[in-house]
């Protein structure tokens, strides 16, 4: 069973996309609803070619997708792909919690042994 390993490229792409403050802000904005390139670019003091490159990274990670009408490109989030990052973090948390539980059990056993002797 390799569900997490099998998703590795998608996880890489998702976390790479999320590793930049501009891209996270764009995702925050898109969480409120679809937006065009001009709407997305407006709050940033950045030249358009650089900004468009951030959009390209987000789209490559498939956290967002875009559609074109006339000269307008509109972006929206892909919720299923956001879940890729969420699932990875949840799996790590479960692993750590299981480990802590085992540690807790072990310490409890030690304690019982000590009080038993």
């Amino acid at each position, binding site marked *: 069973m390799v569900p997490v390993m099998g998703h590795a490229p998608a996880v890489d792409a998702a976390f790479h996309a999320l590793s930049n403050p501009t891209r996270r802000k764009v995702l925050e904005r898109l969480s409120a609803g679809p937006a*065009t*390139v*001009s*709407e997305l*670019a407006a709050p940033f*003091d950045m*030249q*358009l*070619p650089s900004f*468009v*490159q951030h*959009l*390209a990274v987000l*789209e*490559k990670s498939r956290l967002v997708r*875009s559609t*074109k*009408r*006339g*000269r*307008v*490109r509109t972006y929206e989030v892909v919720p299923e792909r956001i879940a890729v990052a969420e699932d990875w973090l949840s799996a790590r948390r479960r692993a750590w919690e299981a480990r802590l539980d085992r540690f807790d059990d072990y310490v409890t056993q030690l304690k019982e042994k000590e009080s038993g002797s």
Partner: protein
Amino acid sequence: MSTHVAFNPKLDFAIERFIDAPTRLVWEALTKPEHLKEWYMPRPWGRVARAELDLRPGGIISIDIAVGDGPESPNVGCVLEVVPMQRLVWTSMLFPGYRPAVFDDIPITAIMTMEPVGAGTRYVFTALHRDAADLETNKASGFYQGTEMAIDQFVAHVLALK
């Protein structure tokens, strides 16, 4: 066709170059898609993925550009005026066939003029904007800088055609 253009430095910008090449070559480099592809997009920024130009009023001007490995952005507008070896005017306010355009970028009307000066050519690119805010946005977004870079590439391309 006589044309009146009121250039307003508060709304518009013009970039002028002397090109040490015959006007015929300047016109060719400006209007043939295979040449447009070579110089239209600043090379450090990306590339032209596709270029199409129908040299008549109402004709298509379509230059898809791509930044890095990103998706291709359509740049499509309508040709307004064609005077071979003198003047080409197009606007992004309209789609081909004078269809009102769907856009969310800053629309411009672009005027390219050329005239022989000795054995060379004086070339002027003018971009008309709706208002001062549009001009400011186009300067901040890199459009102005990109146009200057493209014109320098254009001049180099024409000189290489000689």
